[in-house]
């Protein structure tokens, strides 16, 4: 007569070896002696088949968590570096669409002038390329305010 413990030992051995417990001789002997054990075995089989498809709990794999975190950090860092590198590159220019005069063109002169007239008194502020700020006040009969910016582009300073 097989005890319950012997029955479950035989069931577990078969399952550990990924065999069908019902095909195991020891399990069959135990079931033949006490067929009511079959209900528990079938319940186990049914419930094992219904186990949810969970990911194993990661807490037992700290190295896996660390590896995943490192992968994320490396990926984000790589993407960031790539973006910065791309921003630092000069904008590519198609040489066939640029005339010889355009090459190296830059601002060679500029002037900013701000005019403000209040109550017949006109004030003009000018900024010139050498950084000098010039102010001029005139008495006029008009009231106005204006700003003008002029720049000159070319190859020669």
């Amino acid at each position, binding site marked *: 007569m097989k005890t319950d413990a012997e029955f*479950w030992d035989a069931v577990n051995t078969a399952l550990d070896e990924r065999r069908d417990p019902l095909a195991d001789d020891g399990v069959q002997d135990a079931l033949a002696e006490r067929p009511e054990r079959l209900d528990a*075995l079938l319940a186990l089989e049914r419930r094992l088949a*219904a186990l949810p498809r969970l990911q*194993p709990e990661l807490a*037992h794999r700290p190295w896996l968590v660390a590896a995943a975190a490192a992968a994320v950090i490396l990926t984000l860092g790589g993407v960031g570096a790539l973006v910065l590198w791309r921003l630092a590159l000069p904008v590519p220019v198609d040489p066939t669409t640029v005339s010889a005069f355009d090459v190296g063109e830059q601002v060679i002169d500029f002037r900013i002038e701000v005019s403000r007239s209040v109550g017949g008194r006109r004030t003009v502020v000018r900024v010139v390329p050498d950084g000098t700020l010039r102010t001029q006040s005139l008495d006029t009969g008009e009231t106005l305010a204006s700003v003008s910016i002029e720049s000159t582009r070319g190859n020669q300073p």
Partner: protein
Amino acid sequence: MTHEPPPKLVPTTNLASPSKQAAPQGLDPTAKLAAASDSAPLGLERELPALRALVAKLAPAGDVDDLVQEVVSRALRYRDTFDGRRALGPWLAKTALNVCVDHRARRARETTSHEPLEPAAAPDTRVEEREHVAVLLAKLSRVERDVLVRFHQCGESVREIAAALGLAEGTVKSHLCRARKRLAEERP
């Protein structure tokens, strides 16, 4: 342990002895077979209800009659191996288990997928079963749950689980054993 499946029986099988072929009318073919053959000393007829109940737990309803018939046929074929001093029920139950295991193997080959031995459950029953299992899993310890899922759902071996969790293989097997037993016996 498994035997070559016998050919499907028909009521006119020649397993019966001529002197008893005329006996019981109104019985199903399996009962006729059991009664009409030289099985009287075995007492197969008395065991048929229990045999049918056992097979019904293991096979889809549509296959039960055929399988019971197959069990009786196999029992008659191998009756010489039966020790008359022992009870017939366990011997017949073991024969039935073998027939059902063979049946599952045949079906698995036909469908190339693993099917549970018990009759196919309705979708509602499966949902209920999953909810039930979720409740049972919550009652297990964290390591029992993890070991169980890794082995039976993720397909990891005992050795792989032991390495992943930093446990001895024997400890993993103990956790598996406890978890399965609780899964089998616990009620929600």
